[in-house]
């Protein structure tokens, strides 16, 4: 399976098949609720590689993710449009769209035995806009 992540805001962050390792989509309500809860949260968790640019090619845009994670809550651009495509056998299995995504956690890991770094990105949709989340898929690429 391959993944494509696109984050649109004041700048566009594009990460492709080489970068992304796993994608997780979660909807979460309190487990102790007796009936359907209005306390509904949506998460998108992306893990991937931080590649080193060689032969003078352009560096990947993981650095922009790190910069986005530092944007304080007072600024409008802490909310961005995130779209992830899950592609397998020329089919878009899922296209998940969070129009008001913000970063909850962002981690980068590097080791002295590795040639690549790894990142962990946890995004959530702004809770009052949960209704705007789109979960599409099942069409040709």
């Amino acid at each position, binding site marked *: *399976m*391959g*993944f494509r992540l696109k984050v649109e805001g004041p700048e566009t962050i594009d990460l492709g*098949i080489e970068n*992304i*390792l*796993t*994608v*997780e*989509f*979660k*909807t*979460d*309500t*309190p*487990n102790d*609720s*007796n*009936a*359907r*809860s*209005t306390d*509904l949260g*949506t998460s998108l968790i992306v893990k991937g590689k931080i590649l080193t640019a060689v032969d003078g090619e352009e560096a990947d845009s993981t650095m922009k993710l790190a910069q986005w994670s530092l944007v304080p809550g007072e600024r409008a651009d802490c909310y961005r449009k995130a779209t992830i495509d*899950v592609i*397998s*056998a020329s*089919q878009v*299995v*899922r296209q998940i769209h969070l129009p008001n995504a913000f970063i909850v956690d962002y981690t980068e890991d590097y080791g002295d035995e590795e040639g690549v770094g790894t990142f962990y990105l946890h995004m959530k949709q702004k809770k009052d806009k*949960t*209704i705007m*989340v789109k*979960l*599409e*898929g*099942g069409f040709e690429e």
Partner: protein
Amino acid sequence: MGFRVKIEGVETIELQIESVQKVRFKTDIPKDSNARTKDVGSTMVISGKILTAVDGDPFDSTRQMGIWSLVPAESADCYRKLTVEVISASQVVRKIFLPNAFVVDYTEHFGDTEGIGTFELVVKQKKDKLDKVTIEGGYSA
């Protein structure tokens, strides 16, 4: 063992034997109770595979489960009828029916080294309708 899952609401979601891997049925009462409590909860955990359609086959209905998990509590559509059949050696070992099921958690996971995704769906029966849960089984399929 094979499992058949049917979710009926505004639309019908059917998951076949190829999709569903595990089913867990839980009845839960507080462990610190001194006598049988009326605080009984009924939970169903279903996990399985998200398959990619090839050769023009229709896609499986796992995406509809994701959409169900996003239905807000204000909409009557968040409660649906769930039927799970556990089938082994042409016998229906269990047929569990939750007539007012709602989603507590839903997770989808995709990886770059896998050809399929996985899902986990946690549903509960609306607590005041607990007596409507039926558990049958022990007859031929």
